[in-house]
């Protein structure tokens, strides 16, 4: 038996007490095991992190598996260290179930001369943040890929109709020889459909950007009467061709309003285009623009806020009552107009409504079959809010 001097004993005791205090006060879970895998020291933080209902003092001398048996990867790596001499390990984002909730742990261990020291930290908050960031990055990559695909696809899709249109224009102009009446008729029909294809591609591009939510809103001060008249002018030829009457009633003076003219143009163009298309010859289109107050009832709807309201009424075919709820849905075309206009995409009103929703405006209608339809556009007087985006919507030239 070795005779250990009293001072050394005292120092060892003091050191042991000091170390036990350090372990006891440590903010992280700490576990010390000997080379046989028996627990030498453990703090209550570890028990809490692991969600165990165990007494720290009763664990001393027990097999370490008593507290880690439900963490198979930890059991495995400790075995590798103790039996095969692996010096250290670092397990990140180890998932355990604590009271039915997922908890993520960071576990590090080091082999020492008398056993192993293992430190456990709860990193659930950091793991959640990292997972969220990863998911966001992944979503951004997917959105970017979708956006680029759509841009590329629309570029590729526009190429053939460009060739067709230019060649048909040369043909129709008579520059490459005179066509007879029938040939001219066919060439015109081909040109019309090719142009229609370009419109469809642009509309699909817009719908796609709409659904990806990537288009910006860039408001600028706009005088709504001048703006609407400008859009109406685009339809002058078609209005003249169909001998439509256009009546305009505007408030004597309207304040400038912050709107994105590109976006609003798409909306107003769509509504006027429908009015012109679906009103028989010699019919009437009425356009009114007024400033209306919150709670005023306009076209069976109460305004939620002070708004500039554009009202476009036609004496056209109307919308069947039993199809009214579908009018703003994608690719929908009412039964009564499918034969009258084979060129529609069924996307115009969907796009218009989506834009108005995106800019906190409103779009609704009233209609009577064979009497006509009135569309109401309400833009809050406070204007549209600026929104960031990466891809603008395409504005079509009419005609």
């Amino acid at each position, binding site marked *: 038996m070795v005779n250990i001097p009293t001072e050394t004993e005292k120092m060892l005791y003091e050191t042991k007490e000091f170390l036990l205090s350090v372990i006891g006060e440590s903010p992280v879970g700490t576990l010390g095991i000997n080379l046989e895998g028996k627990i030498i020291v453990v703090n209550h933080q570890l028990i809490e992190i692991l969600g165990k209902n165990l007494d720290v003092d009763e664990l001393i001398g027990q097999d370490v598996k008593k507290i880690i048996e439900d963490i198979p990867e930890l059991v495995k790596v400790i075995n590798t260290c103790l039996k095969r001499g692996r010096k250290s390990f670092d397990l990140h984002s180890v998932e355990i179930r604590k009271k039915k909730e997922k908890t993520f742990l960071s576990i590090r261990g080091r082999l020492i001369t008398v056993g192993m020291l293992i430190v456990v930290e709860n990193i659930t908050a950091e793991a959640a943040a990292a997972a969220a960031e990863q998911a966001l990055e992944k979503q951004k990559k997917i959105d970017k890929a979708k956006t680029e695909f759509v*841009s590329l696809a*629309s*570029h590729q899709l*526009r*190429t053939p*109709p*460009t*060739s067709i*249109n*230019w*060649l048909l*224009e*040369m043909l129709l*102009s008579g*520059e*490459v020889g005179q066509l007879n009446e029938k040939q001219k008729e066919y060439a015109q029909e081909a040109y019309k459909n090719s142009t229609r294809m*370009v419109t469809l*591609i*642009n509309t699909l*591009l817009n719908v796609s950007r709409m659904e990806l939510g990537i288009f910006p809103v860039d408001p600028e001060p706009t005088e709504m009467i001048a703006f609407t008249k400008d859009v109406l002018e685009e339809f002058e030829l078609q209005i003249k061709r169909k001998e439509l009457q256009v009546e305009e009633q505007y408030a004597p003076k309207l304040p400038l309003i912050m709107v994105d003219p590109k976006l609003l143009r798409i909306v107003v163009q769509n509504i006027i285009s429908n009015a012109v298309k679906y009103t028989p010859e010699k019919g009437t289109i009425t356009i009114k623009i007024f400033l209306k107050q919150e709670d005023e009832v306009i076209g069976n709807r109460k305004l939620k806020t002070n708004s500039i309201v554009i009202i476009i009424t036609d004496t056209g075919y109307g919308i069947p009552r039993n199809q009214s709820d579908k009018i703003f849905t994608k690719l929908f075309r009412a039964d009564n107009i499918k034969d009258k206009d084979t060129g529609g995409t069924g996307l115009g009103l969907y796009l218009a409504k989506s834009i108005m929703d995106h800019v906190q405006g409103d779009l609704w209608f009233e209609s009577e079959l064979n009497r006509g339809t009135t569309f109401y556009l309400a833009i809050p007087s406070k204007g549209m809010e600026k929104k960031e985006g*990466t*891809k*603008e919507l*395409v504005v*079509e*030239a009419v005609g």
Partner: protein
Amino acid sequence: MKESTKKKILIIEDEVSQRKALVDKFIREGFSVLEARDGEEGLRVALKEQPNIILLDIIMPKMDGMTVMKKLRQENEWGKKVPIILLTNLSSDDDKTMNRIKEDSPAYYLVKANLKIGDLVEKVKEQLARET
């Protein structure tokens, strides 16, 4: 019209049908027309012939239109000033492309699918009138 008094236009476009329509149209409009089917050939012809105006597609094999324009602008005095009309079916809202475009001062950026060939002729004549 004598060849010497005709304005010289260079059409750099890889799409055969579009190039054919443009070449034919501009010949009928009284231009002396040069053509190239990719960016590399286009740059070579441009530097050799020094046309009065260039119609330049963007997406092309061997060398894209943006690179052609950049090289022309850096080449010499003529290259810095020659009016270039960019023609493309890309939407005009790709920020990266637009920023590159603005740097090299094209006369116009036109989306082909939305453009009538007659309107393009007008734009070319308009630009040439500005130059004289």
